[in-house]
């Protein structure tokens, strides 16, 4: 149907490989620069010079300590983790579905997580006070994660017959399930009061504002293993680009690969959406930018996507939290406003290369 891997290539495989390896190093550099900048950027005006000064003299006021340790550091860590999770999940999905438009939304994570979050925001208030207090601010993230995870499992079940998962069935069932989740979400939105509606709006636009060590500790065990093990999927995805039958002939356990990727993506994006709300765009655009510049070899694509996704989200967050200071913009707005034109520009320049 679509041939990402075999896109008309102007450069030879060897050249591309060298470029991709170079890109890996460049992206590590970018990540370090963006991370340091992020620690020195914020509404409170504690900048890099102040931090360097404090590091040398070894003293920082209580307020500045809180800003550094309780606000900027967890926020940086969360941005890195979620940016990487979204970009890698996107790359995995596109590889698995052999479709450049695939993103985690296709396996129902987005719709399921959205329904979970809306349910928690609107109906959460009706829970017995004891339960509500016990979960506190964790109710929405928990519900979003369960919703995303549950939707994916359901979809996987629907598309699997006799040990074989039909990718096409999964795509179509995903659309139907998404519409159903959207309708239930609509009912809840109708029932919501003004405050809940505003909460919903803010949730759907995503934010790293609530980042803290606690949230990080919740998301890390779900996201980090997926990031670490994703390079192991590279060989399988490269083979899969030739087609399922061909991949099987090359000795790839295709069904196992599908299972691992789908569950991994559900865990990583489910956790990302749960702690940061809906941040679109990164999962689609980052893998594309990399594929256009350094080719579709997943060996490089997956680590590069993690690095670029992390850098982009941290960069976008720097803008989100300073541009309207002391207030802040939802980060989903920033990623879309900045990323979409860049993406369009690159598409226009390199038209045809994606080979859709």
């Amino acid at each position, binding site marked *: 149907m679509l041939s990402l891997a075999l896109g008309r290539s102007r450069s030879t495989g060897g050249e591309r490989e060298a470029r991709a390896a170079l890109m890996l190093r460049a992206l590590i550099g970018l990540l370090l620069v963006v991370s340091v900048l992020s620690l020195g950027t914020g*509404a*409170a005006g504690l900048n890099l010079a102040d931090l360097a000064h404090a590091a040398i003299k070894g003293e920082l006021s209580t307020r500045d300590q809180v*800003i550094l340790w309780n606000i900027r550091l967890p926020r940086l860590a969360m941005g890195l983790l979620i940016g990487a999770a979204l970009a890698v999940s996107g790359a995995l999905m596109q590889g698995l579905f052999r479709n450049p438009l695939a993103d985690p939304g296709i396996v129902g994570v987005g719709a399921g997580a959205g329904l979970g979050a809306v349910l928690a925001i609107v109906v959460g208030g009706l829970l017995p006070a004891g339960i509500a207090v016990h979960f*506190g601010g964790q109710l929405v993230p928990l519900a979003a994660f369960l919703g995303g995870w549950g939707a994916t499992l359901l979809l996987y079940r629907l598309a699997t017959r006799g040990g074989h998962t039909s990718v096409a069935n999964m795509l179509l069932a995903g659309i139907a399930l998404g519409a159903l989740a959207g309708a239930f979400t609509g009912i809840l939105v*109708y029932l919501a009061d*003004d405050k809940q509606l505003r*909460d919903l709006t803010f949730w759907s636009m995503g934010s790293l504002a609530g980042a803290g060590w606690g949230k990080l500790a919740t998301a890390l065990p779900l996201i980090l293993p997926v990031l670490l093990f994703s390079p192991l999927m590279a060989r399988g995805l490269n083979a899969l680009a030739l087609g399922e039958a061909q991949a099987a002939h090359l000795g790839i356990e295709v069904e196992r690969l599908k299972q691992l990727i789908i569950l991994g993506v559900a865990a990583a994006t489910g956790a990302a959406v749960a702690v940061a709300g809906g941040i679109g765009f990164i999962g689609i655009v980052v893998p594309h930018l990399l594929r256009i510049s350094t080719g579709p070899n997943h060996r490089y694509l997956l680590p590069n996507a993690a690095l670029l996704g992390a850098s982009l989200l941290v960069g976008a967050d720097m803008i989100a939290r300073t541009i309207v200071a*002391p207030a802040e913009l939802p980060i989903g707005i920033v990623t879309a406003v900045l990323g979409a034109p860049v993406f369009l520009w690159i598409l226009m320049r390199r038209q045809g290369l994606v080979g859709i």
Partner: protein
Amino acid sequence: MMRGVNALRAGLALALSVALTAPAGAEDAKRVVTLGGSVTEIAVALGAGDLLVARDSTSNYPAAIAALPDVGYIRALSPEGVLSVAPDLILAEADAGPPAAVDVLTAAGVPFLRMPGDPTPAGVVDKIKAVAEALGRDAEGEALATNVQAGLTEAEARAAAVTDKKRVLFVLSLQGGRVMAGGEGSSAEGIIALAGGINAATGFQGYKQMTDEAVLAAAPDLILIMDREGDLAIGNADVMAHPTLSQTPAAQAGAIVRMDGMMLLGFGPRTPDAARALYDALYPQAG
């Protein structure tokens, strides 16, 4: 004379106990951030306006407050943004958040005080007293609370005296010709009752869209609209051009009233004024 000495003694005792028990910085706060329109309004009414260094996006009265930095929407606060204005006291409405942001602010050593107060007449008085206490302005708070309480009592008495109550429809928005009205339990219903009217929109909770037939059946004698600018503004022409609203008794009699949203629905110090204004519009002959 004896009374003066007693007052002095009580004052001293109070000051001592406050010094011993109050959270650090709360009583002599110099840089205050208020979160929530009614809290800001009360702080200004208590004469603490020049202590304020920032506000949230729901605080828009009095007009001078708009010059202060805006730390964003009250339920989506950015902790670093709030800290950047270097506050030594934060006064917030009950629903300020998210919890993670509040935790960080507390960790930074800034007293974060949540004010009580339901959107009801009794809640207004509670809130005034709490804000006054947090700002160390008990005397001003007492005076304002007494004043507002008197206004509320008067409004309630006035409302109770109305024998033939008129029906009021509060229209929140008219986007795409759909009537979004304030139903049962909404703050709009609260203020309508306090002004001696009856909420014409019944059968649903909160703010919801009403079908055209229900609007006709509601048969309001007066249409109440928030006075605002931009897309959501509703002009008299919009009401008169609306196929069903224009057929209501209110539109036919030209009884359309516009009022500042925060004054009308905010349940703050201006609530008695809002009730009075709405009452006068409903029952002009009662004067």
